[in-house]
């Protein structure tokens, strides 16, 4: 049975994070920018889960598990859900007041 190096999981996480950064920087639609943030949060969660696996693997004794990484991932999800609710409400308000979703046209605080 072939096994997977732990570093591959971290590299996948890094690739997803970089793609999220790219979407955040290059896209102009405010909703897509918001989705890129969610992509970055997901990438970090994958790192947490992989680290938890490695921590328990390195310990060796399997009677007491360290699940702190899982809880961090769980709290990340909770914060992401709250962030999505507030952020989408803000997007709705911006659209109602300006009738645009392009972040280049939302520039009241420029200059």
């Amino acid at each position: 049975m072939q096994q997977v190096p732990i570093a591959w999981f971290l590299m996948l996480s890094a690739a997803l994070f970089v793609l999220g950064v790219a979407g955040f920087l290059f896209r102009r639609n405010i909703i897509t920018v918001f989705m890129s943030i969610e992509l970055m949060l997901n990438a970090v969660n994958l790192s947490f889960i992989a680290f938890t696996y490695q921590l328990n693997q390195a310990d060796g004794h399997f009677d007491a598990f360290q699940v702190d990484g899982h809880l961090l991932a769980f709290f990340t999800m909770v914060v992401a859900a709250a962030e999505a609710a507030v952020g989408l409400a803000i997007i709705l308000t911006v659209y109602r007041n300006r009738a645009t979703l392009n972040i280049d046209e939302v520039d009241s605080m420029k200059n």
Partner: protein
Amino acid sequence: MDLILFLIFASIALVCAVNVVVQKHPISSAVSLIGVMGSLAMLYLLLGAEFVAAAQVIVYAGAVMVLFVFVIMLLNAGKETPRGGSFMAQLLGTPVLLGLLLVLALLARHMYPPEAMVHFGGFRGGAPRAIGKALFTTYLLPFEATSILILIAIVGAVVLARKEMD
């Protein structure tokens, strides 16, 4: 078998993540993001994080993405207008991001030697019982603070999305 499963779901996640960034229509990006989240849930399951995998599907792929799709439909968001960014951003953006990816990948390789292997099924501590025990003992205070955070988020969302803003 482990390697095959990892490669399948990792490639699905990567392809969908690229699709999130390159698609011009927000609804295509949203559907691709659901693909990323689903395949990540499978990877969590393979790493022994059963509770987090279930929460990923329910909270992320379910609730959060439904909210996104709902807002996209509500605002009738169309294709975004292509726009030339600043010259420096177009010139430097992709190389800088690739450099960031290279640094992160090298760091991961450096931190963990190639013989640190993941054997699926090797960790069985991610069941809801263990998570719940840690959540209500060690992490009780953050858990209670989370409930207040969600309450604030609900009130904030209602206030922001009200009909009249004056």
